[in-house]
């Protein structure tokens, strides 16, 4: 005997309209998609124009300097040595998102160290919008940097592999890393800040130190990497949209950033 037979009362079912509203409410909570997509990108552009680069990177300029220094002094020479051994392609996965990841980590660390976040969270422009703009600028710098690094490594490898192939590896690594780290931050907030780059380093070191993996990597054609890069870039922009939308609508503090 079910409940209905025990309690033969007419239970009003949800109307179609009520059902729709309930579903929309649940979806809104799960994905804070309150603003239309175009509004977010317009807001990002407007904010970028309003604050300018100086404000965007106010107080954290030294972090970029440090990240660039690490790139130039440690990572790039290491890659050049590998290039001498015709293994440069193996470390592209590690090196191309390195500047992006390092400067992002260092700036977040500095924001925590200086204890300015409580203020930034209550200021009108959401801190997430600022973070997103910083990420976009860093991404652009990293794309340009990757092209440069690929060109140098390619010439050091005496053009053993094709330049387009190297570039596609670098871009796929950069965009995949970017979207994974953004997804992590969006879902788990500060808890994802360290695990994602650490996991990335672990995975990237495999082909560097394990010959079969390096050989397998070399056999993957460029168009696969290019497809991965395109998918990564698309995913990155979608994540960026949710990341910023949650900030503007004020729901961001639930996520810790």
């Amino acid at each position: 005997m079910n409940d209905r037979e025990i309690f033969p009362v007419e239970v009003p079912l949800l109307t179609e309209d009520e059902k729709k509203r309930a579903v929309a409410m649940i979806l809104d909570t799960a994905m804070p998609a309150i603003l239309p997509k175009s509004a977010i990108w317009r807001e990002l552009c407007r904010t970028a124009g309003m604050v300018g680069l100086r404000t965007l990177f106010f107080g954290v300029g030294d972090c970029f300097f440090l990240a660039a220094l690490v790139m130039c002094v440690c990572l790039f020479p290491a890659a050049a040595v590998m290039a001498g051994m015709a293994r440069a392609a193996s470390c592209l996965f590690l090196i191309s998102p390195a500047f992006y990841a390092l400067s992002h980590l260092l700036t977040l660390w500095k924001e925590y160290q200086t204890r300015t976040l409580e203020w930034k969270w209550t200021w009108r422009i959401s801190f997430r919008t600022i973070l997103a703009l910083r990420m976009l600028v860093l991404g652009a710098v990293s794309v340009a940097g990757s092209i440069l690094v690929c060109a140098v490594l390619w010439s050091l490898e005496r053009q053993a592999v094709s330049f387009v192939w190297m570039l596609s590896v670098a871009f796929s690594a950069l965009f995949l890393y970017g979207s994974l780290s953004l997804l992590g931050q969006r879902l788990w907030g500060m808890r994802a800040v360290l695990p994602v780059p650490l996991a990335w380093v672990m995975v990237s070191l495999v082909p560097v130190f394990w010959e079969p993996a390096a050989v397998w990597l070399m056999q993957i054609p460029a168009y696969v990497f290019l497809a991965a890069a395109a998918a990564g870039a698309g995913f990155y922009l979608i994540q960026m949209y949710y990341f910023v939308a949650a900030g503007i609508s004020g729901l961001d503090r639930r996520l810790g950033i």
Partner: protein
Amino acid sequence: MLSVERVTKCYGNLTALEDISLDLAQGVYGLLAPNGAGKSTLMKMLATLLFPTKGRILWDGEEIVAMGERYRGLLGYLPQDFGYYPNSTPRQFMRYAAALQKIPRAETDRRISRLLELVGLSDAADRKLKRLSGGMLQRVGIAVAMLNDPRLLILDEPTAGLDPGERVRFRNMIHSLAEDRIVILSTHIVSDIETIAGRIIMLRDHRLLCCDTPAQICGRFRGKIFQLPADAQIMPHQHVLSEGQGENGTVLRVLSEMPPEDGVAVAPSLEDAFLAIYASKREGA
């Protein structure tokens, strides 16, 4: 304007605030409670830095979290323990804050100069923040919180570290600001809010004890506060609130339901009321 509706805040197992309901309209509200009572917790919830575990906070009937940027635009907040970029100057830091508060560029410099003058820092405007004293930094903080001319100004212990002259200046400033906005400030220093707070919010045992005018709070202890010489015998039903220097040596201020022998009835001050309200708790502890 701002209403707190049955708000509870828990940190894991610890209930920091329980079932707080408040309605705040224009004026100065002093949040007066001992250490750890939950003042900062309440203020952080009002600043949308923390979310109530239960209950909700509304601005003109709208949930503040859902208002997002619109709410942040009308809010000015001074954290209790704020950070800064030590190598920047007050003016640079305020320009930065102004940009992130979306204050029009044309207006920024004028507003910064006016605020720096208001907090008495015009001379130090271009010195590095790391070279300023604690009290000066606190004043920079107050100026930053007021940058966007907020309709709701929340200051968590704004007078910590200020010298007496600056305290008076701060009180005057808040007094003049409060005509058309809500100012909420927390402190343990009774004299800071005695004269400027229209209403005093007190918390005890994680709950709201009262939200009354200073006169109402003092009125509850009228005829119960007495001054006694230091060597007087204290009965079990009497509580010594404080010790002070009278004309003829040390005197005690005592809370007592009945007039003690050789006790002189005195007008209760807000400090007496504060000490009396939290006396039982301290003795119990």
